[in-house]
């Protein structure tokens, strides 16, 4: 047993002392978490505004100019609300569930390269790590549903875990095409691999993979049109019916972070991450001064906008359709994509 694997996992050069490395990592973690929290707060505002305008409403307008302080007001309100725990429920599991939900999504951020040279951990199995963490989010949901001792929460939890497990397969398989093309599971190398093309993306050769990934990502994050676990008209609020105050806010947080993580993965695997398309830089050389983080956020926000756009447009799916879509359409399509990509990669 040696410790180099551990250092490599932390993404540091191996000659610096352990203490310095740990401090650097902690600062990086603090920065990423702080930035993400702020993004989550304003992602809710952005969502309400976007959907409001799509439905010819104004969205939040009261708190601050154009409702800009609304997320802060919401946060303060949630923080000071009473924390109600059902008496007949399982107290420990009930309290643990939201923590797991947030932990699972937040830890996936550790391997995401935001711009050249900035990621908390540069690990060789980055993509698998993200899949592993997103598969853990099912626990938060299923535990919340079970421990609430409520029929609505239980049904919501069961539905959701079945949905998350089913779509995880399609999600994983849709990324195999990207793994094949880049020959690596390391997110940094996946981004680098896309620079070979003049358009700097795997989006065009992997259009099928991208489509499957997007649909599966919507289902994984429980967003409309696949938000069956929290179908208000039938299940009140699904698995978090019994939650209130800060614990409810944690589930909410988990959902939005999951959305950001999925958007980041889509950007890294299919849209070239923080890099700009080489052809664009050739035609407009002055674009080279735009830092990578700007490209990254533009692409990520496009995807987050897509989540809202779909939510404002498409009605909720029926449960049996959802399962049929996952197992009988997306998985075979993803397998087809893998076979086609392998053949093309082998032939050329």
């Amino acid at each position: 047993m040696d410790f180099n694997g551990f250092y490599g996992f932390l993404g540091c050069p191996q000659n610096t002392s352990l203490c310095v490395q740990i401090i650097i990592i902690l600062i990086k973690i603090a920065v990423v978490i702080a930035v993400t929290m702020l993004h989550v707060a304003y992602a809710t505002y952005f969502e309400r505004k976007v959907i409001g305008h799509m439905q010819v409403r104004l969205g939040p307008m009261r708190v601050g100019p154009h409702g800009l302080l609304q997320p802060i007001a919401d946060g303060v309100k949630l923080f000071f609300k009473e924390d109600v725990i059902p008496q007949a429920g399982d107290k420990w599991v009930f309290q643990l569930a939201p923590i797991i939900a947030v932990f699972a999504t937040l830890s996936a951020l550790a391997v995401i390269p935001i711009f050249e040279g900035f990621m908390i951990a540069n690990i060789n199995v980055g993509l698998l790590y993200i899949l592993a963490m997103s598969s853990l989010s099912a626990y938060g949901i299923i535990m919340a549903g079970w421990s609430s001792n409520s029929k609505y929460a239980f049904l919501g939890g069961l539905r959701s875990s079945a949905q998350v497990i089913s779509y995880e397969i399609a999600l994983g398989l849709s990324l195999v095409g990207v793994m094949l093309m880049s020959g690596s599971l390391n997110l940094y190398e996946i981004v680098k691999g896309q620079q070979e093309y003049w358009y700097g993306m795997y989006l065009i050769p992997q259009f099928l993979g991208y489509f499957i990934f997007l649909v599966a990502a919507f289902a994984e994050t429980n967003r409309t049109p696949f938000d069956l676990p929290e179908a208000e008209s039938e299940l009140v609020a699904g698995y978090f019916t019994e939650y209130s105050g800060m614990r409810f806010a944690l589930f909410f947080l988990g959902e939005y972070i999951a959305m950001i993580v999925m958007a980041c993965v889509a950007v890294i695997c299919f849209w070239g991450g923080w890099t700009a398309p080489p052809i664009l830089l050739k035609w407009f050389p002055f674009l080279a001064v735009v830092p990578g983080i700007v490209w990254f956020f533009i692409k990520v926000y496009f995807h987050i906008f897509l989540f809202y756009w779909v939510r404002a447009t498409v009605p909720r799916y029926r449960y049996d359709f959802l399962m049929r879509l996952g197992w009988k359409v997306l998985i075979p399509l993803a397998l087809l994509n893998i076979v086609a990509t392998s053949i093309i990669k082998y032939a050329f």
Partner: protein
Amino acid sequence: MLPVIFFIYFAVAMTALSILIITRKNPVHSVLWMLAMFFHIAALYLFLNAEFLAAVQLILYAGAILVLFLFVIMMLNLREELSIERFIDEWPIGVALAVSILLLIYFTLAKFVQGPLGQYSIEAVKSETHTKALGKVLYTDYLFPFEIASLVLLIAIVGAIVLAKKRS
């Protein structure tokens, strides 16, 4: 020194978690402790530079198999389950068997001679990445056993579908 401390932590924690798993009255709690143990196993793989195995351990065992366990357990009648004794009367026999196997392993390990090292030293695995090294070995030297294993799994899948399908 540090690796030893880590190993001792993992060994103790995994043993403690295993005991917790089998002694809980509530099966859902057992599964949750098992989740914690799977994390420890994955971390142990990570310390052995087996990053692919660690990730797969989490995706397959923690993310898929254990969720299915949880799924089935939640369908049980918990009220009835909680009133049943956790262990059957014959549990001392089980303990005796386990201890004798432990002793057997202990004495065999004393005679254990480490085999010659293959081409995959820690440096070789690290330069090639664990995923690639594992894939290469699996699809060249061990292709035949690998294919047999996948065939066995395929039979299990077909069997499950046949059992689950309604006869009309």
